[in-house]
Structure formats: structure tokens, C-alpha cells
């Protein structure tokens, strides 16, 4: 169980979290649903260990979180397959191609990010997060730029990993595809509704 108690956090001179208390299940998928700019990404960064609260306590953080950023953040000089291989230990590098196949991009293994469409880059970033082998998935709008069929396929892939996940989304149909618990939020500062 990830437990946040009375968390205060300022970001860019704004109070993003103000006394937030929240228990997150370490099992299954939790969807974080709310408007843009209400602090959902900051919450993800906090759980990923990339942001430190100004006050409050955080316990039960995942040991190896796999974070899919809101932006793809692919290494521009590496090919699609190399981008996935970059997060794998040496003995698992061969798995990169399998993950590319799972996101329907096996034929584009040697292309660099600038040669790929936005949707393709998103799938590579998602494949990288899933391939990482984390004990908790933190996915920030994982289906940006994907059509309905691909969204369904990627949602199925996320569920199939069986790894507990916190997924940030704006779309109700994505929540339906992912299943699990829904946390409705608003802000700023972020409040659980």
C-alpha cells in the first residue's frame, strides 16, 4: 500500500499538493481522472521518487517504479529498438524486439524517433516502460496520439502485464478499457473527489 499523508508540495511557485492524504492499492490498476493542470503528473512524479514533498510523509513507495512520462522522452540518436534496450539489463537486451512486436512496431526497429509518427513514438515509450520490469507502473496519459484500435490493444497489453499501475487519463472510455479503481481528482491544489 502506497500511503501519502498530509503532503504539501510546491512546483514552479504554485501549491500543487496541499495536505493531500491518499492510500493507493499496490494491486490492480488505478485510474487518476481529472482536468489538465490539476497536479496529476506531480503526484506521479512524487510516487516515482522524482519529486520530494515539502512536508508530509510518504510510505510504501514502489522499489522499482516504471514511469511513462507525459512526453515520450526517447533518446533522439537511438533507434526504436535501442531505446527500449537502453532500460534493460545486458542479459535481457534481446527482449527489446519482442516488446516492439507487442506494440506492432517490429518492422520499425531501426528507425529513429524523428522518423516515427507521434503515435509510434508513444508506443515505443510505453513499450520501454512495460519492458523495464518495474514493480509498479506509473503511466501519464499512455494513449496520447493513438487511434481507438491501438488504444484498445495497448490497454490490453498494460492489463496483461499484471503489474499494479496508476494511470493518468482524461478520457472515460480509456478508464473502461483499463478497468480497476477510479480516482476522480480536481484542483489546483489537487483534491480527491
Amino acid at each position, binding site marked *: 500500500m502506497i500511503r501519502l499523508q498530509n503532503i504539501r508540495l510546491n512546483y514552479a511557485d504554485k501549491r500543487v499538493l496541499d495536505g493531500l492524504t491518499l492510500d493507493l492499492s499496490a494491486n490492480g490498476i488505478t485510474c487518476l481522472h481529472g482536468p489538465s493542470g490539476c497536479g496529476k503528473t506531480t503526484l506521479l512524479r512524487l510516487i*516515482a521518487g522524482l519529486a520530494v514533498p515539502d512536508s508530509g510523509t510518504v510510505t510504501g513507495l514502489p522499489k522499482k517504479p516504471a514511469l511513462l*512520462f507525459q512526453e515520450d522522452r526517447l*533518446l533522439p*540518436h537511438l533507434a526504436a529498438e535501442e531505446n527500449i534496450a537502453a532500460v534493460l539489463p545486458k542479459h535481457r537486451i534481446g527482449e527489446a524486439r519482442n516488446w516492439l512486436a507487442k506494440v506492432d512496431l517490429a518492422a520499425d526497429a531501426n528507425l*529513429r524517433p524523428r522518423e516515427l509518427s507521434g503515435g509510434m513514438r508513444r508506443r515505443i515509450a510505453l513499450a520501454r516502460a512495460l519492458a523495464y520490469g518495474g514493480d509498479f507502473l506509473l503511466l501519464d496519459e499512455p494513449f496520447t496520439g493513438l487511434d481507438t484500435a491501438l488504444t484498445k490493444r495497448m490497454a490490453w497489453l498494460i492489463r496483461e502485464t499484471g503489474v499494479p499501475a496508476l494511470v493518468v487519463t482524461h478520457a472515460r472510455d480509456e478508464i473502461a478499457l483499463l478497468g480497476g479503481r477510479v480516482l476522480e481528482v480536481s484542483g489546483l491544489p489537487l483534491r480527491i473527489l
Partner: protein
Amino acid sequence: MKTSTLLDNKWIRAALALAVWLLVWEGLARWVNITLLLPGPVIVVQTLAELLGSADFRTATGFSLLGVLTGFLIGVAAGSLLAWLTWASRLADALFSPLLRLVRTAPVASFIILALIWLTSRTVPMVIAALMVAPILWSSTKTAIEETDPALLEMAKAYRFPAWQRFRLVYLPQILPQWTAACATAMGLAWKSGIAAEVIAQPRPAIGTNLYRARLFLNTEELFAWTVLIILLSFLLERLFIRSMAGLGRRYAA
């Protein structure tokens, strides 16, 4: 509509420009009509051809190239390492950054004369070349490190890249273009300052020493021939460096 002409070809444009300036030079030389003051391009090329065949040329060029290139490599290594050090440690930044800024702004002649007091004339050109190169590499590399994409650095942190992987996959591709450009600039400067150091320090045998002796004996055509040689070698070194770096640049291009 724009029609294509011979001038569209950059090599033809360069050859034409060279021909025009050679003609201006020849015209001026004929007008002055005193070889001691201004030898024409034909005499200079003849003198250069004689120099190229002499043993003195080979030993002098070999010595100068070795000294300047060694100094260049030392300067590149020192400048790059100091960039990382001053970026990573505030103490190192406080210690070294003012020193490197001072070296960058102080006149090269002061360093040459000071170096002559402390060092042998044979090592002065190498040390001066290194001193001129290091601040350029330090400044460019440090700026490039500071400008590395924070989003990619955060991604590397999130996926727990080890230090070496973070350097190789995130920093290196972003630093390399600026680092290569700084090396190319520094190469020219190392060559010029190294030769200047040779002119003052007079090591034997060396291009700078021969340049000084040509002036001393009022051998103006030889002075011009050595100068042409210095320019040609500088151009050649820079092209060689850029070419050798091109493969690396392609590997890390986005």
C-alpha cells in the same frame, strides 16, 4: 527565373576567388617591383617547392606538428576534464574557472615569455598550444553539459541509468556537436599560437624558427613560402580533424 551558371558550383567560385586574389598579388608585386618588399606568387611557389624538397623542411615541419598536436591533445583532455570538474563541484568551479578565464583573456605573448623563463625552448610551443586550447574546450564543454536536456536527464534518473550509461546515452550526444566545433576552432588556434611561440622561443628545428630566420636575413620570399605552408598545414589539420569526427557525429546525430 534564376538560371544556373558556373558560379553555382562552390569549387568553381572558390577557384575564381583564388585566381582573382593571386592576380591582385602578382599585380601589386610587379608594381612594387622589389622582391625584398613583396615577392610575387610565382617566386613564392618556386621557393616553397625548393623548401618542400629540403631535409630542413621535413625535420622542422615534423617537430612543429608533433609539438603543436601534443599540446592540442593535452589542452583538449585538460579542458574537457576541467569542464566536468567545474560543473560537478562548486569548489573546483571557484578554483579553476577564474584561472581559465584569465588564461583565455591574457595575451599569448606574455605566456610565451613567461614559459621561456621556466621551460626549455623545445617544450614552450607545446605548452603554449595546450594553454590556448584548454580554456576553449573548457568553456564550450561546460556550456554543453549545462544545456543538456533536463527531460532526458530525468528520464535517465527514472530508469536508473548507471553513471556511464547516463554519460554515453544522454550527455555525450548533446555535448558532441559543440565539443567538435570547439576542437576545430582550438586546432587553428593551437597551430597559430604554437608557431608564434616558436618564433619567440627559437627551438631548432622548427617552422617558427625558420620563419624568424627568414625575416632576420631579409629573405622575404622564404618568409612568404613558410607562411603559405603554415596556412596550408593549418587548413589540412582542420579538415583532417573534421573528417575524422564526421563518423562519430553521424552516430550521435538525432
